[in-house]
């Protein structure tokens, strides 16, 4: 929690609805945790008291199950398959449209997204870190993405301190959690009798003021602060470092890539739940009457066959090269692009992988060995030796 203890308020458990009601009064469409098909998803709350209580999300490679929280807390579930990303980088979104008149003349116009102001209740430190990572991509200086910017600007984020990490969580090792430190409007830490609430923005401070809460006591603030280190210590997975760029880029021909490729279905689940993956396809949807056409973007995955498609050949025709592309982008070349890793340690790719591939385990296996010299069976892995440029077979 940020260091403004004198401004922290205390929201009793039975007053949780007052916070949601205030946000609704301010005109925010409130998205909160909702159980859908056995998982926690962010959906529009119909009423201020619609938050579920007493749920935990038990997660393991290829497994996600909601269980009962013996303490009946509001936020004892670590995370669900999505949090903020679909609200800022929409899964599908029209970018521009073109009309064609009877003479065949084309008229192009940009599509401005019509999005309501939204409040998301229950975002985690990893979600906030992931949003900052996506901001660096979509709000790059000189190339603002109009659609992302429009959605991003209208968000009000209510973060929560993680107290109950899942077995798949490893945000402590990436440096992105479990305590929210930036990017939120309000941050909550759940104690037995209520929430310590702190503001992280002017918008958040205004809402906090309007709630007229009693100040949190030093004991309550201390109890809230202790949750972070405890949750970090409870994490069982980790990455061996925050910058694995050189370690991975020097293992591009490691035999582990073949092994993981044999287990990977290339389904793209990991990229769909990853809060930082930004790839999208651009598609055209002509109207049935022939008079107009929409140009839209839709989430894409580097595991799909079309991602590396070029006329005449596919840059990544096999699963091995696609998995390697994903992992080396996420953990290695992301540093070249954005100055940090693309992984925030949320563990979603582990839980939602149908075959239970564990990114932390794959990294550990890659690190345990060194690259293999090319041999007769890997005809494409010709590598330069001592400054010589090796011959490179045509794709």
């Amino acid at each position, binding site marked *: 929690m940020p260091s403004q203890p004198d401004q922290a308020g205390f929201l009793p458990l039975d007053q949780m609805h007052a916070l949601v009601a205030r946000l609704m009064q301010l005109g925010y469409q409130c998205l909160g945790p909702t159980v859908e098909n056995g998982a926690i998803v962010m959906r529009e709350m119909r009423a201020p008291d619609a938050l579920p209580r007493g749920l935990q999300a038990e997660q393991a490679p290829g497994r996600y199950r909601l269980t009962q929280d013996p303490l009946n807390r509001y936020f004892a579930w670590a995370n669900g398959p999505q949090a903020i990303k679909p609200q800022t980088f929409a899964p599908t979104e029209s970018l521009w449209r073109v009309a*064609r008149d009877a003479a065949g003349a*084309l008229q192009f116009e940009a599509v401005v997204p019509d999005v309501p102001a939204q409040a998301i209740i229950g975002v985690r430190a990893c979600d906030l870190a992931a949003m900052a990572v996506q901001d660096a991509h979509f709000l790059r200086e000189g190339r603002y993405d109009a659609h992302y*910017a429009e959605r991003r600007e209208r968000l009000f984020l209510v973060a929560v301190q993680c107290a109950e990490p899942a077995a798949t969580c490893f945000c402590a090792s990436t440096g992105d959690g479990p305590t929210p430190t930036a990017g939120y409007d309000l941050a909550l830490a759940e104690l037995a009798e209520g929430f310590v609430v702190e503001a992280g923005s002017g918008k958040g401070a205004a809402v906090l003021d309007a709630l007229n809460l009693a100040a949190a006591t030093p004991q309550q603030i201390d109890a809230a602060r202790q949750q972070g280190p405890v949750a970090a210590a409870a994490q069982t997975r980790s990455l061996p470092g925050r910058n694995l760029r050189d370690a991975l880029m020097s293992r591009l021909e490691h035999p582990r890539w073949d092994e993981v490729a044999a287990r990977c279905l290339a389904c793209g689940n990991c990229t769909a739940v990853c809060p930082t993956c930004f*790839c*999208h396809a651009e598609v055209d949807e002509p109207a049935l009457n022939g008079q107009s056409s929409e140009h839209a973007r839709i989430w894409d995955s580097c595991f799909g066959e079309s991602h590396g498609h070029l006329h005449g050949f596919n840059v990544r025709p096999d699963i091995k090269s696609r998995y390697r592309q994903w992992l080396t982008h996420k953990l290695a070349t992301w540093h070249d692009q954005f100055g940090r890793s693309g992984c925030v340690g949320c563990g979603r790719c582990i839980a939602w992988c149908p075959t239970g591939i564990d990114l932390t385990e794959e990294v550990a296996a890659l690190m345990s060995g060194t690259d293999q010299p090319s041999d007769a069976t890997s005809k494409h892995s010709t590598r330069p030796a001592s400054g010589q440029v090796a011959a490179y077979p*045509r794709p």
Partner: protein
Amino acid sequence: MPKPIDAGAPHAATVLARTQESPSIFTLELRLDDAAAHAAYRFAPGQFNMLYLYGVGEVPISIMSDPEDRDGIGHTIRAVGRVTRGLAELQPGDQVGLRGPFGRGWPLQEMGGRDVVLVLGGLGCAPAVSVIHYVLKRRERFGKLVIIQGVKHADDLIWREQYDRWSKLPDTQVLVAADEGAALWPWHVGRVTGLFGLARFNPERAVAMMCGPEGMMRVAAEHLLARGLPESGLYLSMERNMQCAVGRCGHCQFGGAFVCRDGPVFNWGEVKTLLAHRGF
């Protein structure tokens, strides 16, 4: 937050002229309908545009016309996919959408006074043909011009008369090879890599630009560097799946580079390590 600078909708453009270059290759000369936008349009050889075919989609196409020719913007296209087959059907007067120019072009500012070596493979020639025209129009500014062109089949060579014409110019050497020849094919039959040894230029004061299949470019790079060309003088144009053209959609990533934004032209040193691995 600052306002976005690229809302992203294309400009309408009209086909001024259409030329059939070979059975599957054609050239479209386009003009932006908005006169002010057309007058303001500037590009560097090696850059590309996104051309949009109504209701079908966009494709990245190199600009092959001269940057100082303000009449039309030239694109030589091979009809290979949904969009390009449709573009092939267009006639003068038809409209398309155009976004661009995008990416980083050839380092023309570094070429002054130097020998210029172009290594072109297959249909990858279009991005570099603009360089040939550029040099020939400003001949006194450059040293020798060496054009090395390989094609799979003799019939794939477009602009054949131009190659004949270029080969007769002073200080200009044209080396063409087809893996498979044909009747009356005047050039070499066999791998283009077999011609590299014939190229006459001063490696210490040359700049080389490559465009074509990556395997060919790797062999060419090996040869040129072995002859003493400094790595800083070796460039190539890369091709990847491009959908947004502004470094956003992610398809064209090559290591940490977004080919559409950081390329498509790269210095050899920027990409050589990763080019040694298939699948990036």
